[in-house]
């Protein structure tokens, strides 16, 4: 093994990783602030997007005529580039987080509406029939039977939406919404690669953790609905804690 290969194979990557760790350490309080901002944007978005998407999904499960136009509109939304959408919203809402949150709510509608609709319409037919026969009105059937039973499928849609939101929220920094995107844009401007890499890793970890957390709750809901699941270690521990 020559000295040069040792340098390229081992020393260089080690040096690079040490640089990243250095950056992470010296900027950790900044990063934490940005992560919290990012989570804040994500949470506000999901708090608006979830009831809205579930309501729309429920609406189209009852009024079938609205199904095609609403799913079509939600689908179209996803094809509009985020920068373009921000540009369109700025004249109305100004800059900062409001236009970003509105855009994120619109982006996250398709998975939530679609999964709500699928969950509600593909719920155990016999349970719906029994509910009807026992004298539940349509509203009572939705409340007591269909929505609770559709929860795991809705949760899968929310997971999908969260990953989209976390990713696109980063671009929101471009119009002053804050969040981890701040460091990304700064890194690009300053050609500061360490900053870009570390922020990207943090951003991905954030998305993965949120996705995993919701995945666990989805499995818990499935288990509660009587489905056979193949629980992960963590889910098993949680199930024990709950029961």
């Amino acid at each position, binding site marked *: 093994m020559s000295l040069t290969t040792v340098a390229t194979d081992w020393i260089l990557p080690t040096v690079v990783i040490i640089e990243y760790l250095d950056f992470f350490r010296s900027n950790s309080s900044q990063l934490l602030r940005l992560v919290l901002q990012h989570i804040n944007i994500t949470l506000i978005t999901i708090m608006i997007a979830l009831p809205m998407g579930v309501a729309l999904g429920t609406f189209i499960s009852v009024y079938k005529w609205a199904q095609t136009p609403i799913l079509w509109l939600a689908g179209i939304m996803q094809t509009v580039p985020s920068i373009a959408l921000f540009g369109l919203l700025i004249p109305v809402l100004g800059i900062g987080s409001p236009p970003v949150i509105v855009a994120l709510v619109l982006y996250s509608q398709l998975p939530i509406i679609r999964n709500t609709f699928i969950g509600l319409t593909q719920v*155990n*037919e*016999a*349970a*719906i*029939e*029994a*509910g*009807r*026969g*026992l*004298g*539940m*009105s349509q509203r*009572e059937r939705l409340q*007591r*039977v269909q929505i*609770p*039973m559709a929860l795991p499928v809705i949760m899968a849609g929310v997971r999908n939406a969260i990953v989209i939101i976390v990713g696109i929220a980063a671009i929101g920094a471009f119009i002053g919404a804050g969040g981890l995107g701040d460091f990304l844009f700064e890194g690009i401007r300053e050609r500061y690669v360490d900053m870009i890499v570390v922020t990207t890793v943090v951003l991905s970890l954030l998305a993965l953790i949120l996705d995993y957390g919701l995945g666990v709750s989805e499995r818990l809901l499935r288990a*509660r*609905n*009587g489905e056979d699941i193949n629980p992960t270690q963590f889910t098993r521990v949680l199930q024990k804690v709950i029961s």
Partner: protein
Amino acid sequence: MNTIEFEGVTKVYDDGTVAIEDVSYSVESGTTTVLVGPSGCGKTTTMKLVNRLEDPSEGTVYYEGDDVQELDRIELRRDVGYVIQEIGLFDHMTVAENVATVPELKDWGRERINDRLNELLELMDMPPAEYRDQYPRELSGGQRQRVGIARALAGEPDVMLMDEPFGALDPITRENLQDEFLELQQQIDTTILFVTHSIDEALKMGDKIAIYDVGKVVQYDTPQEILENPTNEFVEDFVGADRGLKRLQVTQVETIMTKPAEASDTGALAADGNGNVARVLSPTDSTQVALSRMIQFDVTRLPVVDGGTVVGEVTKDTVYDIAQTGA
């Protein structure tokens, strides 16, 4: 009193299929009426007209004297118990929550619901302490249908509609549930409409049987009458070639037993010193059981014992007579 009355009822679906045509009969309160026939004959449709899961195209369905079309369908359904083959338990709710469905819809108080729950689970032979908080997935098929029946009974309905309730169960569980349900029926005094495609189940469960051929009721009678005087070839075929034996099944020993001439006539009982009670009959045994035991023990007469005393005797000849009448 007739609880349910069908008067010239026709149901045509939107796609033009005629489900039932000009069906008329009435169901006496407190009895079990079984609707039986091949699949697609309209028996389930008839049943669904009662709780307005379907509405008639022509004719009138009366519930306790009122045209059901005049009644609020939600209220009506809460007053009528409903059990289906697929059971349709709410998998995300516990046994207690499932059973409490209708009382909760009816806004009973918590205490009343609780009492009713315990009463029903006891009745279903599912001790509340053990089963209340279990989820449907933890139960066997038979237990699930017990919960289904308890859920239907919970709102103290005057009428129970049961659509092939035991159809999806294995034969042993089915028979057990049938027997339990027959006992239960004595206690609850509810009018029952029971749909099945099995003539054996119909003969076993029904006080009256309505036999359906494609969309029409071809005979509405007691099981005995259907076995003795089938109105046409369809009924004869449907009942099967062994209707003599089936007649034994629906005839109880007490209807044909004779008073024993003297106590000494109970030789069969005395001869069995091992406490083997199978060598005697109880008044509610079917004559089929009587014949089976006569063959098994190779005797021509068996004593009928009720509560430890001999109340009568059945002979092979009288049993044969039952199987032969009307043949």
